[in-house]
């Protein structure tokens, strides 16, 4: 496996020197989105383009995409088990397929396919069931034998040397990865062109209400009057809603990932393994990108425990013996908001004018354009879009949960 000598910019698109400008906060807006991750940016984009709301600001505590947006491992797929999820994530996948045309900027969406390996008889049954369910929902899905897995990704060890040999895999050819920072920049540029304010370094410290409805927000850069607030704050959503007496079914956990040094292209797809507990792809620049499940405790520190990294490296070397010589270059963590059914919440709240898009947990990057579009619909019309109707808060009272733990645990 040759280390890559070419410069890091190799094969990366050339962008204009300046794509957007961070704005100063105005005294009031028609609507404010909290959080300049992918979801907040996309929500603002669709509010402006599909609902004509342009007197709008996106407020960001840190910097553009400094949260989970540029910390994720950028996997995009729509092969979820249940109809509600398949419809949601497939809508997103179709928006990804035309994102460069919509936004007019490169995002390096690369449909290199995703393999979900099965290592036990139960995983084979679950995988085959998911493939059949996906096909019924009109989603591309195949069940591959171990030899076919090796054809798609020759570096995976499909021999019976493994403690848990590969018995087969689900394969979604249209799945893939995108370059997350380019996605954020593309939205930021479009928002700038549309006259929407992106305000970095502006933390929302409180949501003001009067007579049961939103009247404004307190920020580290002063008060802003607004009747409409959309939270796209990912792992920090609870912190914002708790003072309002709105306790959401969310738990914030660290989720870690890591990259190796740059290598020549050796890994042509994305491989995930729930049982051996790791997933691996190779970034456009050449790093091997590895991740696994969340740390087992709540944490807001954007930092997790070392043994989680150690275990995913051991798992990676088990599945990909060729990677034994690779080195860990960087590790990091984000803070992800986990719901009890591993599915998101896109809804209005009991407080008039306050809307939440949260609970995307470990898997919201792939949903970015759809999350933004559906959230914008809820904010602009006050009621859910057909695709997000199942994703309302009331499901935790009615019991109509959308249990995607099988499709969204180690796999993101």
């Amino acid at each position, binding site marked *: 496996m040759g280390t890559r000598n070419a410069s890091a910019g190799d094969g990366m698109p050339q962008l204009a020197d300046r794509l957007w400008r961070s704005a100063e906060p105005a005294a009031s807006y028609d609507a404010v989105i909290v959080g300049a991750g992918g979801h907040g940016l996309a929500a603002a984009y669709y509010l402006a383009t599909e609902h004509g709301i342009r007197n709008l600001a996106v407020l960001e505590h840190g910097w553009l995409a400094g949260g989970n947006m540029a910390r994720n491992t950028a996997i995009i797929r729509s092969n979820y088990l249940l109809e509600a999820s398949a419809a949601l994530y497939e809508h997103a996948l179709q928006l990804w397929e035309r994102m460069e045309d919509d936004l007019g900027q490169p995002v390096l969406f690369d449909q290199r396919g995703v393999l979900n390996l099965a290592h036990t008889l139960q995983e084979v049954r679950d995988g085959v069931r998911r493939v059949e369910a996906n096909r019924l929902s009109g989603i591309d899905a195949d069940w591959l034998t171990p030899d076919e897995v090796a054809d798609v990704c020759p570096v995976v060890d499909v021999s019976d040397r493994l403690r848990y040999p590969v018995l087969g895999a689900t394969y979604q050819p249209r799945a893939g990865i995108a370059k997350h920072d380019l996605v954020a920049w593309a939205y930021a540029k479009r928002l700038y062109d549309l006259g929407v304010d992106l305000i970095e370094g502006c933390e929302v410290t409180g949501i003001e209400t009067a007579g049961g409805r939103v009247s404004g927000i307190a920020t580290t850069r002063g008060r802003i009057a607004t009747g409409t607030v959309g939270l796209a704050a990912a792992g920090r959503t*609870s*912190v914002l809603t708790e003072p309002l007496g709105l*306790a959401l079914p969310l*738990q914030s956990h660290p989720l870690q990932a890591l990259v190796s040094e740059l290598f020549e292209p050796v890994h042509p797809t994305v491989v995930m393994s729930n049982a051996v507990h790791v997933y691996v792809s190779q970034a456009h620049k050449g790093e091997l990108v590895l991740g696994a499940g969340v740390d*087992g*405790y709540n944490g807001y*520190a954007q930092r997790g425990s070392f043994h989680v990294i150690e275990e995913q490296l051991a798992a990676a070397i088990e599945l990909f013996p060729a990677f034994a010589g690779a080195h860990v270059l960087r590790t990091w963590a984000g803070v992800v908001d986990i719901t009890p059914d591993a599915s998101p919440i896109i809804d209005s709240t009991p407080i008039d004018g306050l809307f939440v898009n949260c609970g995307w947990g470990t898997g919201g990057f792939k949903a970015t354009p759809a999350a933004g579009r559906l959230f914008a619909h809820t904010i602009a019309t006050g009621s859910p879009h057909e695709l997000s109707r199942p994703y309302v808060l009331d499901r*935790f009272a009615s019991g109509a949960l959308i249990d995607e733990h099988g499709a969204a645990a180690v796999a993101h």
Partner: protein
Amino acid sequence: MLLIECPWCGPRDEIEFVCGGQAGVSYPPDPFALDDDEWGHYLFVRDNPAGPLAEQWCHTAGCRSWFIVERDTLTQHVLATRKLPEAGEEL
């Protein structure tokens, strides 16, 4: 790696434990008195502070006892650990 002091076995590495979430969430005395919202809240909603949180942890690879860990979720520091309260005692 967190270092957690089991009240029975002393300080041990985090990998010997599992975190069981917020401590002190007790079964409703009369579940039939709850409406759907309240029951859903009991089942699915737990505190999620950025700061101190009392949790229940189990020393699965040791004495297998459950006990209380107070942890700051912002700094990841373990603030204190203690045995579970006796029946009727406060957390």
